């Protein structure tokens, strides 16, 4: 088919996040059938189908060897992982776990090795923080163990190994140099988080009270938090409204909307005169980032700002052409463009939009920048003549790779007679740059922390290895966490330091809470019960009892868990 004849409609994508970034084979089926049937085709996926095509996180089993200085600095890390790849295409969690470990713990020397094993299990795909979660779950408890061996505060060991500034990441490039993060303020996150959590006072609590053992844990998590180079597009209509055309999908996180606050702020426009057009390429949308993987706030705040700067420049040029003077004589605010030396002399946005239509060319979209994506060009052509058309590609500089981080703190109380435990307090402190929308940010922190807590506590698949099939298929068997599994006290914070390599200063927050939360809970359990009691997550009641009761033999069979 001619690409121009294709309209994509994806309004409410729902959860699934990274798993929906790339089209899966199954997603193509309705398109093929629709072509044959010459009629709309909907793909309905049952729980049974979900087991076959839904794609789960590849699991890693790892062996870590590490050397520390007496101050707790990680001098060398030897990391070997075996990845349950599932069937079919190659997964990248294994390699990414090494990359993220190199960033999160800044080892002075590091070797990473990995093996991917194809297994006859349900299909696998990227889930939140692919590889990042596993890195934290594998290495986080290792740091806590080192702290205990060295009689150091685990928080101090986390801190001394935390990335800082333009921290190096990953293996050397061909020229021997290292890639670097755009920024990292993890030490600040650890400091603020420790204060909010009350780390020092909690350390002094009695470790044992009757059958209950108390433990606290701290861990860091991180992951890729933004891409660059996408397009911003909006129209200032002759009615003076601001209509944003965005290709961002709605995963339920509402980021398709939240990120547009940047445009409203940059244009000094009240939010209630902004309208968002999205979810249907037939409505002429801009080329946007994929809706997942913590891309949106970073990529599209940049793109939105680029379009805003274009609009501001055009408004000033229109005013100068209409009212005289030079564009730099004009300022923007209160839905008007006005002279700096006489604020009464100016035009409303509505008037400027009508004037843009009269001027045509670049002002109303009849001419389009050459560097924007062809999809954006097509949209601009369709919108031409509707008002002042603001369009630009994000060409802001960035030196480095963008990551976000979370420092997580957990306190658990473990009943050693039942194996049940409670997370009595959990705190997550983000280093994700400027927080654009605090409530949405909080939702991400809570939801993704719960995902990590689920991996630490209950969420698991079980396979009958003789027959090669999963036996735990329903949610009451695989046990993802529910709303009522929330820690008894959950708090969050953000250091809020702008990333210096992106103009708005915001980075994504969706990924890093997962690994940090998972590792913090595992570290807290180790603190309560001792090192090397668990070699597998999730840690469930049977594992707790097996750790405590020497006569309770627990089989540690092969690749059967998600983490």
């Amino acid at each position, binding site marked *: 088919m001619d690409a121009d004849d294709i309209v994509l409609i994806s309004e409410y994508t729902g959860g699934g996040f990274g798993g929906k970034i790339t089209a899966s084979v199954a997603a193509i089926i309705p398109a093929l059938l629709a072509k044959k049937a010459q009629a709309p085709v909907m793909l309905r996926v*049952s729980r049974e189908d979900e087991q076959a095509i839904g794609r789960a996180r590849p699991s890693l089993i790892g062996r870590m060897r590490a050397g520390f200085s007496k101050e707790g600095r990680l001098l060398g890390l030897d990391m070997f992982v075996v990845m349950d790849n599932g069937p079919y295409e190659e997964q990248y969690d294994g390699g990414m776990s090494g990359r993220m470990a190199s960033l999160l713990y800044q080892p002075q020397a590091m070797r990473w090795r990995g093996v991917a094993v194809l297994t006859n299990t349900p299909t696998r795909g990227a889930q939140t923080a692919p590889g990042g979660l596993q890195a934290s779950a594998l290495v986080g408890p290792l740091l806590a163990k080192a702290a205990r061996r060295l009689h150091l505060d685990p928080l101090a060991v986390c801190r001394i190994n935390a990335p800082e500034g333009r921290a190096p990441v990953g293996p050397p490039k061909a020229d021997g140099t290292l890639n670097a993060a755009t920024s990292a303020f993890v030490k600040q996150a650890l400091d603020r988080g420790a204060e909010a959590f009350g780390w020092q006072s909690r350390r002094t609590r009695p470790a044992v009270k009757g059958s209950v053992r108390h433990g606290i844990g701290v861990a860091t998590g991180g992951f890729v938090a933004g891409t660059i180079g996408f397009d911003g597009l909006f129209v200032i209509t002759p009615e003076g409204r601001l209509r944003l055309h965005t290709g961002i999908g709605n995963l339920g996180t509402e980021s398709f909307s939240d990120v547009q606050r940047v445009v409203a702020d940059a244009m000094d426009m009240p939010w209630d005169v902004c309208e968002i057009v999205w979810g249907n390429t037939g409505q002429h949308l801009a080329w946007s980032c994929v809706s997942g993987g913590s891309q949106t706030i970073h990529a599209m705040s940049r793109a939105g700002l680029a379009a805003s700067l274009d609009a501001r420049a055009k408004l000033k040029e229109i005013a100068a052409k209409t009212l005289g003077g030079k564009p730099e004589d004009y300022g923007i605010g209160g839905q008007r463009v006005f002279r700096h030396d006489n604020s009464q002399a100016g035009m409303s946005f509505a008037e400027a939009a009508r004037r843009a239509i009269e001027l045509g060319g670049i002002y109303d979209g009849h001419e389009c920048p050459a560097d924007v994506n062809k999809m954006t060009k097509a949209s601009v052509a369709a919108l031409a003549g509707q008002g002042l058309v603001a369009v630009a590609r994000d060409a802001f500089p960035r030196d480095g790779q963008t990551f976000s981080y979370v420092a997580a703190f957990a306190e658990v109380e473990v009943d050693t007679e039942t194996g049940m435990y409670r997370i009595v307090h959990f705190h997550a402190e983000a280093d994700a740059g400027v927080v654009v929308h605090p409530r949405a940010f909080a939702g991400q922190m809570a939801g993704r922390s719960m995902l990590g807590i689920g991996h630490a506590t209950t969420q698991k698949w079980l396979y009958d290895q003789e027959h090669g099939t999963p036996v735990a298929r329903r949610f009451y068997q695989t046990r993802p966490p529910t709303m*009522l599994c929330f820690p008894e006290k959950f708090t969050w914070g953000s250091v809020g330091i702008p990333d210096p390599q992106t103009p708005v200063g915001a980075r994504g927050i969706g990924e890093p809470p997962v690994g940090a939360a998972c590792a913090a809970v595992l570290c807290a359990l180790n603190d309560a019960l001792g090192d090397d009691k668990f070699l597998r997550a999730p840690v469930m009641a049977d594992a707790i009892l097996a750790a405590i009761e020497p006569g309770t033999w627990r089989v540690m069979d092969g690749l059967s868990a998600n983490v």
Partner: protein
Amino acid sequence: MAIIRDGMPPFDLFRPTSVEDALSLANRLGADTWILAGGLDSLERFKDRIKRPKAVIDLSGVDALRGIRQEGEDLVIGPMTTLTEVHLHPEIKARFALLAEAAGEVASPQIRNQGTLGGNISQDTRCWYYRGGWDCYRAGGGTCYAGESPEGQNREHAIFGAEGCVAVSPSDTAPALVALEARLVIKNAEGVREVAAEDFFVGPEKDITRVNILRPGELLTEIRLPATWAGATFYFEKVRDRPVWDFPLVNIAAAMRLTGDRIDRARFVLGAVAARPWRLPQVEAAVAGRSRNASAEAAARLAADGAAPLLHNGYKVVLARNLVKRAILGKKES
């Protein structure tokens, strides 16, 4: 032809408004008829097409099966009474707190609002092989995949009474009813019979294909709590992986008559360790006439007598002992 499992196969739905109509329908429609209470056990299996009844008799319209009333010495609970109603009922809380607590520990608030007491005790086992459609002994096949296969996944299975099948009773309220010496009234077209709760449940040694004595054409119509244990000292605890929406790994229901700290008489019942609620007569005998503190350790050691753990569920032996000790001492955390 692909197996379609996301929709229920068609069936005839009947919604009687009286017990008599329900019985008449059940008798007329025969063995392919399914009695539906809250639906939480049934609908999953309909959707999975593991059960394909030709007709379903929905009891939700039978008012006579709902509610809680005093009748002579007995407190009578309609089996269609929801678990939330049982949990919150003032008379049950005051006199039979064991049952109120057990009902409040079932699954999640939403499920307790929909699930019924009768359904909770009558539900089938949740063995993942059996529920997944494997042709095991319980399903009429020729093996037990959880218990007999060397690779069987059996962390949630039985440590007691596993004869051929290692599936367990998943109910939280059933152990409580056995501990309280509840009596269950069953009606069919021919008449009425009343059985002790303990005798309502069936282990694989009696019938490997069933978990209770209800036959096609029969209805559970009343759950009667005698005054025997009213106001006694109770203990219920459920160990599970998730704080909510989880079946028990092991639960315990205990009722004790005390004089001071001395246990005059007691009943201890474990759940999720066998295909039926598992009474512990050896523990009951060991504590009778002794103080709680003096008897706890020794009685706890007896709790797992006869246990035969499988490859992955040895922890249930520890749990059985620890829960009995906690029940005797009456504290969930020290």
